[in-house]
């Protein structure tokens, strides 16, 4: 590309200019100007020893200096600053410092660097080696992971490398042979957890345990390294880091790196019929259907998958080097093609169609050599633009762009800022465009720009309370080093540790006592049974059918059993990275269960119907929110994805309904949070909505006076789960809910459990094994309750043992409720029953009925104390006539 920029100054096109020059108008566009920030620096010599400061070309940014000083004081540090703010340099300099000090004392100093991906590991290996060369230090940095050549090469790395780079799956495995690493571990002064914000949910929980196991082994070798965690901006960097490493952490988040001003453009594509510049060509629309689209109700806009490549093309035409982020590999490829087509279809406007047309796709499906080539051409300015998956979101060095375009909201503010941080050359003006898709979150974000600009981002949730995961890692720990008294209080509190040891002893897998040491005696290498993406170890590999070419390989992470039962039953059609796949078989048995897929091209997708029941919930914590009571606790959730529907991609009509999945129901012991609505609010709202009827609702309770209110609870439950990702780094599919008119029936019944449990069955076995039986139990309990039950809704972690999300919602309930209220009240669907963008949930086991937006907003208003007493009084019946018998209604 020839450089047309006059002075390589600011981005050659501003947000306003983009809107003015773009052929065809977006429907709705907001241009926000974000001010820049000058660099704040500290002279290197103030912080570093002279022999390190001298070779450095630049001063240190203040956050780098702060972090290095905290490290010098012996603290652990979490650096949560923007993309390209020089986080790597912090730990690189600390490694150099440790190395020089150790060398002076004639000893060794090593560092263990843990990256989330293999690609990043190799990228960082290069840049660290370069930096140490620059500093004139002979520090050996080597990657040691699954791709490292076996044999002598590995031995040499273990015995010689100063810095070893790997990932957590590797650490989990290598801990088994820690004695081979004795030299490296004994000398370890620094452990770095890079991109630590990526460790949340199930994965984060495993990482937290692997870190604890690593710490035991380090302790055995008398090493007590410091920890550096680098994180994208998350809401709770200190809390999250401490949870991961189980030590106190100093947070450094005052970013001293410079940024230029930025034009942030929120771009909602025009409706299809107003999309004057093109006809809706079939080849474009074909792959663009998204499961979240609902063709009938929602305003049908040009999909982001079409609009975003056009914006990319337009920007590069105007000399802005641009990075387009796409949600899938296939879309990265397709976007390049579309960008070029856009150019050629608008020759009248783009009179020099070849200007700024050096574009390439980038994703992890490409070979390493090819990716390096693209990175290099991007860095050197040969390329005008790249369409990439989030592979370029995490740390890989490609230099700085003029502009970014996002094809759809990436789902999290954290990720949003991380991606747009790729644009901005020093203090020059940059441009970032978010092209919204039709989905709930996208539409929420473009109509509530303030949400993006608020200072906080999502909290990263990591939790070590899941006993199933703890127990699995305990076996590994005992295999690595005998578990004994010294582990009390560090691995777990005494009671929990003793219970887990006794459980495995009774099962014949551990031997010995804490006083003298507990060894592992089960099948060899318990580390292999750790699945980093599942809690109970039942993890399914995703494979391609034998006769299908490799290019279609979906390359999906293994799936937890809970997900397989819901979304990957035989006959399921899933859209993954823009490609439809049909599940041809599911093998539940064998040492490694599998799901087999084949690519397909059909005009429907599948959706399971889910029945959910909560049983025996026990409150462990509760708090008052006004007159409402919020609980956190544990209980059993029975989930049954018994049937599925085939739903037309266009129009959303059901082609076929109630096809059996042949799956067994899933029973989980998990963590729950639930809200109890006070009687007064309930009575008033029942009265207010007593005339609501839902046409076509096939339910024995269709005529009850409670239906409108129940629809409100149901809608509020859907909405609180729907907005949870706005506050927490959670996949909404890991959460489930149940709205009920009788919370009490779902709680543990002391009398019941005593009489019903036979002497020969354990607590876990007496629970009903199928949904019908469970629901009958609930109704029976409801009829036997002595006092009027309270109504409300449950939110649970959809993974056996729990993930900590329900707890996080418990702790942040008001904020979540506020978001849910906004979502429902501000939706312009105009339907009482809502739309997929507000309260409808495609997984709903009750087919999204009954739902009532108005009643939901009222309930949430009372939680948030937006409504005063008079609003209640208007509807409260004059006297407590207690006339309407409360039906035992509950909706998932």
């Amino acid at each position, binding site marked *: 590309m020839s450089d047309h920029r006059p002075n390589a100054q600011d981005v050659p096109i501003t947000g306003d200019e983009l809107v003015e020059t773009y052929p065809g108008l977006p429907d709705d566009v907001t241009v926000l100007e974000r001010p820049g920030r000058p660099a704040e620096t500290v002279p290197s010599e103030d912080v570093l020893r002279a022999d390190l400061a001298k070779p450095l070309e630049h001063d240190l940014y203040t956050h780098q200096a702060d972090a290095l000083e905290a490290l010098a004081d012996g603290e652990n540090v979490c650096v949560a600053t923007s993309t390209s703010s020089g986080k790597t340099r912090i730990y690189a300099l600390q490694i150099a410092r440790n190395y020089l000090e150790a060398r002076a004392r004639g000893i060794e100093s090593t560092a263990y660097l843990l990256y989330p991906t293999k690609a990043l590991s190799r990228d960082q290996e290069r840049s660290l080696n370069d930096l140490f060369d620059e500093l004139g230090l002979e520090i050996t940095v080597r990657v040691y992971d699954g791709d490292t050549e076996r044999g002598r090469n590995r031995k040499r790395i273990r015995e010689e490398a100063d810095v070893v780079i790997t990932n957590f799956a590797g650490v989990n495995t290598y801990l088994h042979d820690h*004695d081979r690493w*004795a030299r490296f571990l*004994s000398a370890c002064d620094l452990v770095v957890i890079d991109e630590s914000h990526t460790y949340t949910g199930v994965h984060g929980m495993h990482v937290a345990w692997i870190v604890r196991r690593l710490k035991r082994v380090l302790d*055995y*070798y*008398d090493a007590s390294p410091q920890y550096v965690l680098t994180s994208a901006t998350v809401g709770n960097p200190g809390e999250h880091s401490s949870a991961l490493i189980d030590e106190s952490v100093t947070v450094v988040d005052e970013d001293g790196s410079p940024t230029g001003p930025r034009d942030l453009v929120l771009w909602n594509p025009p409706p299809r019929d107003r999309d004057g510049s093109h006809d809706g060509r079939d080849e474009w629309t074909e792959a663009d259907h998204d499961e979240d689209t609902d063709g009938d109700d929602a305003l049908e806009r040009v999909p982001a998958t079409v609009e975003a490549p056009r914006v990319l093309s337009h920007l590069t035409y105007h000399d802005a080097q641009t990075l387009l982020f796409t949600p899938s590999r296939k879309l990265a490829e397709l976007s390049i093609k579309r960008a070029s087509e856009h150019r050629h279809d608008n020759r009248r406007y783009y009179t020099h169609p070849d200007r700024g047309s050096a574009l390439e796709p980038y994703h992890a499906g490409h070979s390493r050599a090819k990716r390096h080539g693209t990175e290099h051409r991007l860095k050197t300015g040969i390329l005008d633009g790249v369409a990439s998956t989030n592979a370029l979101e995490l740390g890989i060095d490609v230099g700085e762009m003029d502009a970014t375009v996002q094809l759809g909201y990436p789902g999290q503010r954290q990720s949003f800022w991380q991606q747009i941080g790729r644009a901005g050359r020093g203090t020059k003006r940059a441009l970032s465009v978010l092209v919204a898709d039709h989905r709930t979150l996208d539409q929420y974000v473009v109509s509530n720009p303030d949400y993006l600009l608020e200072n906080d981002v999502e909290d990263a949730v990591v939790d070590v309370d*899941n*006993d*199933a995961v703890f*127990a*699995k890692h305990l076996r590994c720990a*005992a*295999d*690595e*080093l*005998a*578990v*004994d008294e010294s582990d009390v209080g560090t691995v777990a509190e005494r009671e*929990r540790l003793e*219970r*887990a040891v*006794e*459980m*495995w*002893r*009774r*099962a*014949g897998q551990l*031997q*010995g*006592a804490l*006083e*003298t*040491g*507990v*060894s*592992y*005696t*089960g*099948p*060899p290498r318990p580390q292999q049974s750790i699945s980093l993406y599942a809690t*109970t170890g039942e993890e399914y590999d995703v494979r391609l059918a034998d006769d299908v070419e490799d290019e279609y390989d979906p390359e999906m992470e293994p799936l937890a059993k809970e997900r397989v039962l819901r979304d990957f039953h035989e006959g399921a059609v899933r859209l993954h990275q823009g490609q439809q796949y049909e599940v041809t078989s599911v093998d539940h048995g064998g040492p490694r269960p599998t799901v087999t897929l084949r690519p397909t091209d059909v005009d429907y997708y599948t959706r399971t119907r889910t029945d959910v029941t909560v049983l025996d919930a026990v409150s462990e914590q509760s708090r008052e929110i006004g007159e409402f009571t919020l609980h956190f606790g544990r209980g059993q959730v029975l989930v049954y994805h018994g049937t599925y529907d085939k739903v037309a991609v266009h129009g959303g009509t059901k082609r076929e309904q109630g096809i059996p999945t042949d799956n067994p129901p899933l029973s*989980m*012991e*998990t963590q729950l949070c639930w809200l109890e609505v006070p009687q007064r609010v309930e009575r008033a709202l029942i009265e207010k909505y007593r005339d609501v009827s839902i046409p076509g609702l096939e339910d024995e309770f269709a005529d009850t006076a409670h239906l409108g209110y129940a629809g409100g609870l149901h809608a509020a439950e859907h909405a609180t789960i729907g907005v949870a990702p706005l506050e927490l780094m959670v996949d909404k599919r890991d959460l489930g809910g149940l709205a009920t008119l009788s919370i009490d029936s779902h709680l543990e019944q002391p009398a019941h459990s005593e009489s019903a449990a*036979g*002497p*020969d069955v*354990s*607590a*876990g076995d007496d629970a009903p094994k199928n949904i019908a039986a469970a629901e009958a139990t609930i109704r029976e309990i409801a009829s036997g309750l002595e006092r009027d039950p309270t109504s409300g809704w449950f939110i649970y972690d959809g993974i*056996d*043992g729990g993930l900590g999300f329900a707890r996080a919602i418990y702790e942040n309930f008001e904020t979540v409720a506020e978001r849910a209220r906004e979502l429902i009240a501000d939706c312009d669907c105009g339907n009482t029953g809502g739309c997929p963008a507000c309260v409808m949930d495609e997984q709903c086991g009750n087919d999204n009925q009954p739902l009532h937006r108005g009643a939901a907003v009222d309930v949430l208003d009372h939680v948030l104390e937006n409504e005063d007493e008079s609003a209640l009084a208007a509807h409260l019946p004059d006297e407590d006539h207690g006339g309407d018998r409360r039906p035992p209604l509950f909706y998932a």
Partner: protein
Amino acid sequence: MPARAGATVLALPPSVIADRPVATLEDLDRTLEPDAVWVLGPEREPQAFARARSTFAAPAFHPPLETAGNGPLSRQVIDGGVGGETASLEVAVTPGLQSLQAAPESVSRTLAVDTDLAALVCDDVTTTTRPTALETDLEGTATVADAFPTGEVTTLLTGSQPAGYDALWHLEPDTGAVRDVDHETIGGVGPLAADCVSVRVRGAGPAEGYGNGRSIASLQVTPGGVTSVDTHDVTDYGLEAVTGIGPKTADRLADRGVTTRAELLETPVETLADLPNVSRERARRMRQHATVLEVGEPRRLTDESLPGADWHEPPLCLDIETDGLSPTIIWQIGVYDPASDSYQTFVERGDPSDPGPVLEAFCDWLLGMHPNRALLTWNGWRFDYRHLGAFIAKHVPYYTEEWESIPKFDLYLWAVTEEHALLPGRTNELEVVADALGYEGAGTGLDGARTAAAYQRFMRTGAELEWERHEAYCEDDCRALWHVYERLRDAPRADDVSPANGAPADDDTEQTGLGDF
């Protein structure tokens, strides 16, 4: 076979019986000489049972198949050699928990009257782990508590728990609720209380993690109960015992009428090499190993000298004992010096909380008295050297460098991993190999796990070990190692062996030719 403590019961999963040629089962029968064969339940597998009955000389029983009547309990009489005399003992067999549940009174009467029953077999008793609750349950505790006597220990054998499982569950007689579980069975067990049902659950099922459908168990049973449970790999028997023959090749050989090692030796290399995926080299190796197994003599496969053979003094034979697989102490280090035929031992009998003194004494002696000797172990890179290295670095760090510079040899690595020799003996465990090579052991009745468990008890309770016995065990291993070393040193090359039953002459020529390059 070593001296027997009682009758031998062979516990076989049905799949093992169904999947193996009759010749393999016959080899099992000849080698382990069972006095009874237990075809494991709880699944009903009449065909496997019939196959066992028609193959083994001893009586067979399969609990789900009520061959001995319809009652909740039948008796299985086992005639076995006890102390050189023929004696008979009995075990009670039930088809399953349901049968016990149906007639608890009759069961308790039987158990009360027949106090000489060695054990009760019930194949569907199993443990279930519930990790989210951090609990392990025992299936059927209520039934068992209802039927079993209080105030004494009843041994219950089950094929649903892996061999090696041994725990004493104390149950409330009325509800079956678990009062306590004893995991330490070394040194005898007793009931918890007079009003408590104490069940010692012992597994005889396949050990996990060693491949599917291969693990079998043999039990030594005396009138007092079960004295030991050992596991074996069924692929160490029959044709599959020969290196290079897996189940598929064994099947193909069976199709050609070759089902025993003797028949294999009569089959020309050409015929073997015609089998799919069998090279000439592999075919030759099969025959060589079969010869070694049949003749009971080791053979060397290369001209490579034994590790340390060219030293002016032989290596010191080393063995260590720890308190478990993740050791907290190396409490015994034994060294046999072949040069002086003397044995030296270092044992921590006093303070097990300090691993230092034993290591220090060992290093003082080794570095001070024998500075120029090499060490020899059996599989030491996986155990002895590995743990010694780690412990010395931690507890006597000043000797670390010297320790690391001592030449260390591993005879197992040389013979098995590097394939310099073929060993007789069905497994490559030192005891088995030494036994096959005619080593007369001290017969301590111990193994690594037992001696570790005994030391663990000492650490916790201060209960003294039978020190001499445990020291004799360690010494035995050191001397056995030297015995194997000498036999391997003197062994001829495999190429020079004339196969039994006269192999075709061209085959011999071929082997010599290949060996001479």
